[in-house]
């Protein structure tokens, strides 16, 4: 092994707040921390502006009332809680609904150019599970607008950005009063392979999700659950990990694009789902829970787009978990499309000019990648792993985890979305809780009585050894790409949309075996921009997070939101006030416990009567 591969040199950087991740939550957190006076750094695995937020299409949910003046935060709060099957942390859902409108207006102040209503206000569009047209949007590229706006704001403020830099471990020390607390983080530059150490009292995790552990996913290579896993290793807890959202509409053909997202706006703007018999099958899948607010005829559903007061919304706009399950059933019943999906049809419902104006990137995406003209023919779509509701258990107002100095915001944080997230609530979540976590992290870091933490050298040595391990395997060794592919296939098969105890047990066994094989991951080449090495390190996080999902999914013996058990098909009210909490045991494996769901105060409860 060459000297360059084993060098343990590292550079040291000192900050008040280090934000890990530069999607919507990370950028918003960094802006807030900077504005609160903290010396702030953003660290991200990709180039700035490429994070997964850029893929978000439909819009940002915020009850601004620009289109329907009856909308307001209590309605948004209620929609969010019901969409999450009442398992959301009520306080997060409340803060989210209350603050989202201001966060959207703030983006406009920073240069975002949203689509407009006729009287010049920010336009709002329909989405699944939302009572009113509520999503601020820019065509179907809202995520790009949001990330570019936040990126340009962060650059204008002069916040330090460490791009193409991966954080692999968090450091802790012990405060004078004996409390363990965050002291910094360890990482490497992807471009050079060199190590860095951050000394910082506050760390905000904004690392996004875990979707890359599944075979069919809308998520990019970055979504390996780094923040989830690092939080666990640092002593924090995860909540709701059994709830994984399969977005109903991902592309299915050609195989190369399988899983790529097709925005819910297609349905929000009038698109409908049909099976191979041409039937609008969603009317057969309206659950009791949503019957009173869902149209029971095609005529009523169609009228709703223009007259919301006198009609109920079409079942294509039920929350995502319901739609994904219905699509899955139709395909299983043999009524699928030629390539194993079902049909999403907007061509027969709206004129070509409207489709191209409202859904330009969908038009482009299908034209370029699948030779399909969505203004003339239906799309073939099927469910794709899209989002994890579960994440770091945080204090709602501050985003603080149970570890002093460790904060989390965005997809890596749990609680906000309960058992199922409504479309559009992610971008608003990033803004609302990104800001709160950034402010709280800055406040924590500058607390006068707190002495600065110190990074102990032996922790650095240990992190270096872990990072270099794949270069030191003698003999054969395992290939990271092969292992990842196996993990993805098995997670899809055993821990996917429909689960059983038997398959979950098999998944746990499979994960133990992969974990063992992962200790022999071997890397070819050097440390300069070596994706094989990067994947080998990310894989450990993927395995740990997958273990958490399987464990929690096996424990929850009911079906609710993004967790469907074939052997426990009903929603069980006795599970309705139970959170599953995961921590890391001494043996390095996840430990699970049940915890009561926080109960909302009376005045909020009244909204549901």
């Amino acid at each position, binding site marked *: 092994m060459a000297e360059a591969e084993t060098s343990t040199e590292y550079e040291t950087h000192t900050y008040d707040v280090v934000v890990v991740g530069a999607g919507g939550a990370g950028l918003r957190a960094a802006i807030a921390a900077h504005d609160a006076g903290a010396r702030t750094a953003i660290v991200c695995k990709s180039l700035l502006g490429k994070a997964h937020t850029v893929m978000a299409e439909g819009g940002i949910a915020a009850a601004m009332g620009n289109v329907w003046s009856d909308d307001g935060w209590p309605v948004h709060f209620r929609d969010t809680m019901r969409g999450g099957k009442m398992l959301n942390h009520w306080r997060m859902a409340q803060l989210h609904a209350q603050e989202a409108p201001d966060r959207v*207006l703030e983006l406009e102040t920073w240069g975002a150019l949203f689509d407009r209503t006729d009287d010049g206000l920010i336009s709002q569009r329909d989405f699944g599970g939302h009572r009113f047209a509520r999503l601020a949007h820019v065509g179907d590229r809202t995520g790009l607008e949001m990330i570019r706006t936040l990126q340009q704001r962060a650059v204008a403020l002069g916040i330090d950005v460490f791009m193409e830099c991966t954080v692999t471990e968090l450091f802790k020390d012990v405060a004078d009063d004996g409390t363990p607390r965050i002291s910094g983080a360890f990482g490497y530059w992807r471009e050079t392979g060199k190590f860095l150490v951050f000394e910082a009292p506050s760390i905000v995790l904004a690392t996004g999700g875990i979707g890359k552990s599944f075979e069919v996913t809308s998520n990019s290579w970055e979504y390996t659950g780094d923040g989830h896993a690092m939080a666990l290793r640092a002593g924090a807890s995860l909540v709701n990990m059994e709830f994984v959202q399969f977005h109903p509409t991902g592309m299915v053909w050609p195989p190369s694009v399988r899983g790529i997202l097709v925005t819910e706006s297609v349905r929000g703007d009038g698109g409908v789902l049909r099976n191979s018999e041409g039937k609008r099958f969603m009317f057969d899948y309206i659950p009791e829970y949503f019957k009173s607010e869902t149209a029971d005829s095609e005529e009523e559903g169609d009228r709703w787009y223009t007259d919301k007061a006198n009609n109920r919304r079409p079942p294509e706009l039920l929350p995502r978990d319901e739609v994904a399950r219905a699509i899955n059933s139709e395909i299983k019943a043999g009524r699928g499309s030629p390539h194993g999906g079902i049909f999403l049809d907007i061509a027969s419902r709206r004129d070509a000019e409207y489709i191209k104006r409202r859904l330009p990137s969908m038009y482009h995406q299908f034209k370029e990648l699948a030779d399909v003209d969505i203004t003339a023919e239906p799309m073939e779509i099927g469910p794709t792993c899209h989002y994890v509701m579960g994440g770091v258990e945080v204090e709602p107002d501050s985003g603080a985890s149970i570890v002093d100095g460790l904060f989390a915001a965005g997809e890596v944080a749990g609680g906000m979305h309960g058992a199922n997230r409504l479309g559009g609530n992610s971008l608003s979540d990033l803004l609302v809780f990104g800001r709160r976590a950034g402010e709280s992290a800055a406040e924590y870091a500058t607390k006068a009585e707190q002495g600065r933490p110190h990074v102990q050298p032996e922790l650095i040595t240990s992190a270096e050894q872990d990072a270099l391990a794949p270069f030191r395997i003698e003999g054969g060794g395992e290939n990271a790409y092969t292992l990842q592919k196996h993990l993805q296939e098995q997670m899809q098969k055993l821990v996917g949309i429909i689960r059983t105890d038997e398959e979950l047990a098999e998944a746990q066994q499979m994960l133990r075996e992969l974990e063992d094989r992962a200790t022999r991951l071997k890397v070819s080449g050097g440390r300069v921009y070596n994706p094989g090495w990067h994947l080998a390190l990310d894989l450990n996080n993927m395995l740990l997070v997958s273990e958490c999902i399987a464990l929690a999914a096996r424990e929850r013996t009911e079906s609710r939101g993004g967790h469907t058990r074939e052997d426990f098909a009903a929603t069980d009210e006795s599970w309705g006030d139970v959170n599953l909490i995961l921590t890391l045991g001494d043996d390095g494996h996840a430990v699970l416990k049940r915890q009561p769901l926080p109960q909302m105060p009376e005045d909020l409860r009244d909204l549901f009567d």
Partner: protein
Amino acid sequence: MGYDLSMRLWRGDAEGGGLEDFTVEVSEGEVVLDAIHRVQATQAGDLAVRWNCKAGKCGSCSAEINGRPRLLCMTRLNDFEETDTITVTPLRAFPVIRDLVTDVSYNYEKAREVPAFAPTPPDADGKRRMMQVDVERGQEFRKCIECFLCQDTCHVIRDHEENKPAFAGPRFFLRYAELDMHPLDTNDRRKLAQDAAGIGMCNITKCCTEVCPEGIKITDNAIIPMKERVVDRSFDPLVWLGSKIRRRDPSDERTEVV
């Protein structure tokens, strides 16, 4: 359906390198990035390539395919004959880091030089009002995914490293134009676009427009209007007079930033 594709991939680093031959099995509907990923997974685990969304939305996987700047994820294999050899090389205008990955920090430095958006105060209800027709010009430019293919192809810098300090490139002319056309911005960046960003060096050959994967009409809709605005500011007394006599030009109320 499937066939064996011949590829030549540039491999190397800042010290040097060259094309290496690979044969990889590919199947219907795949794109060049799929083929590269398969090479990576089965033959060259350390092959360096940037990518993220794989759907033409993030602009990470920019490279040159048979000499032409393209996104790897949006270039379909059926654009080529099965017998063709596909050659993939890194972006030529930027220094190589390794294999297909280049150092694009030039673009991030130029981004820092553009003065930020500075809006007028909101209306009394805290909201801002703009008409759709007025935001649409800017929206076209904000479709930019920062793939930097326009920067790569622009001949002012493609083979002229020495021009880089004084030239921001098409991507940032787009940004200057976007802000200049923003209905609520209060900064006047025209002098800056001319002096520091070097818009005058562009001689509108439209190469940037041709490679833009988002189909943004960079030259016609951004650069040429921006050049005209720069000229208006500097030289045209008639336009100046006209704006005083007839309706007020909103740019008169802007503050020049330098």
